[in-house]
């Protein structure tokens, strides 16, 4: 028996959080409170345990072969983790800051920044060119850390793209920039070949499905003969998604 409505409200709120029905602003407020409220943490854990068995209703979906290698690359990139030998961490101590590319919000942010930049560039380009061969798609490739634009991909149609440098890029000795693309439902990225820093490149995508909205483009740093595996192995230097103009 509950003495008042207050505990009921707390448990109902925790339950709604676990179900996922809270709107984003309320989710964020709840999570902020959760971080420092052991009662609430207990309430949430209890709901997680109660509902967890019902994930069994969902059929498994085999991940693409590319997903684990991608996770592993991110793990290796964050290999600064210090083995826990001395102190036991208090629960809810600050977790080690994950690097930017682990963060979904950052990715969404980059996509948003790319969109804003693409729209701005689209305006600029249509103003500059007299015969407005308006590209159907545009991608602004940003340097992940600085979010500065390094390259633009323009597609006058869905089978032909142009990669245009916006500046120069220092490629370390023995390394090269490799250009990749992946649409949402492809299993893995496809190499579009090596790219000379500062040099524009025109490509026909005859071997690939037509360009689509949100298609990912990235430039990674690979050995100078290109990735040995046929998949990106090195760090992402520039990345962006296609936006329909």
């Amino acid at each position, binding site marked *: 028996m509950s003495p008042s409505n207050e505990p*009921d409200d707390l*448990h*109902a709120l925790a339950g*709604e959080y*676990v*179900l*996922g*029905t*809270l*709107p*984003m602003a309320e*989710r964020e407020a709840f999570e902020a409170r959760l971080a420092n409220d052991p009662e609430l*943490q*207990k309430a949430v*854990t*209890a709901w*997680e*345990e*109660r*509902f*967890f*068995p*019902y*994930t*069994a*209703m*969902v*059929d*498994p*979906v*085999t*991940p*693409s072969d590319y*997903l*684990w290698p*991608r*996770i*592993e690359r*991110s*793990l290796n990139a*964050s290999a600064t*983790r210090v*083995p*826990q030998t001395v102190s036991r*961490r208090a*629960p*809810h*101590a600050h*977790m*080690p800051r*994950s690097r930017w590319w*682990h963060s*979904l*919000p950052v*990715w*969404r942010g980059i996509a948003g920044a790319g969109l804003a930049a693409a729209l701005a560039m689209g305006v600029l380009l249509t103003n500059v060119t007299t015969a407005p061969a308006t590209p159907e798609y545009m991608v602004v490739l940003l340097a992940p850390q600085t979010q500065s634009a390094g390259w633009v991909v323009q597609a006058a149609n869905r089978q032909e793209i142009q990669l245009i440098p916006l500046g120069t890029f220092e490629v370390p000795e023995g390394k090269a920039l490799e250009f990749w693309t992946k*649409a*949402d*439902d492809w299993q893995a990225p496809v190499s579009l070949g090596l790219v000379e820093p500062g040099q524009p490149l025109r490509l026909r995508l005859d071997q690939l499905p037509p360009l689509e909205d*949100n298609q990912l483009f990235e430039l990674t740093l690979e050995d100078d003969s290109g990735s040995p595996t046929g998949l990106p192995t090195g760090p992402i230097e520039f990345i962006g998604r296609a936006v329909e103009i």
Partner: protein
Amino acid sequence: MSERDMSETGKANTISTENGHVRPAQEFDYADALARCARGEHAALQQLYQQEGAKLLGVVLRIVKDRGMAEDIVHDACLNIWQRADSFDPQKGAARTWIFSIARHLALNAIRGRDREVSVDLDDPHELDDDDTFQQASRVTDAFDWQTGQRMDECLQQLETERRNCVLHAYVDGLSHAEIAAHTGAPLGTVKAWIKRSLLRLRECMA
């Protein structure tokens, strides 16, 4: 801490039980895998991924309904699990539940964040509809084959079918109140009241 042969635990296959649910063929020690993640053993995360990757992707995809986004989220979930493994406390809950919670909440954040971008005012003018006034034209049937053989089944069983459907649409499909209302044809205020009351009844029943 178990020092079991990694290759043995990592290769644990899954088998289907008579009711179609999948369970580990050998007991996979999730808490031990997390402890090894906390010590920085990549192999432990890989074993977790081999064990649960498809299940995690299934759960996330059901919520976000976009394959590329779902894989992004499973990627992020694995890194979150890796980074936060040392904050997992086996006294407070089961390791497997903890792992899935991380992935589910990333998925929920992604779709609820998207709802906000769309930023429609979903508030229903009929907010105050009494939750007992709603009558569906046809007989309400279960939207889910939800019996799992857990104790919670009995408590869900005690809910009216349409309320049970609301709760499971939220948990499994990641539907918002408004989406559940659209999906079931019940007014928004009714859906909200049903879910809240159902939660309280479930908690009481499980106590």
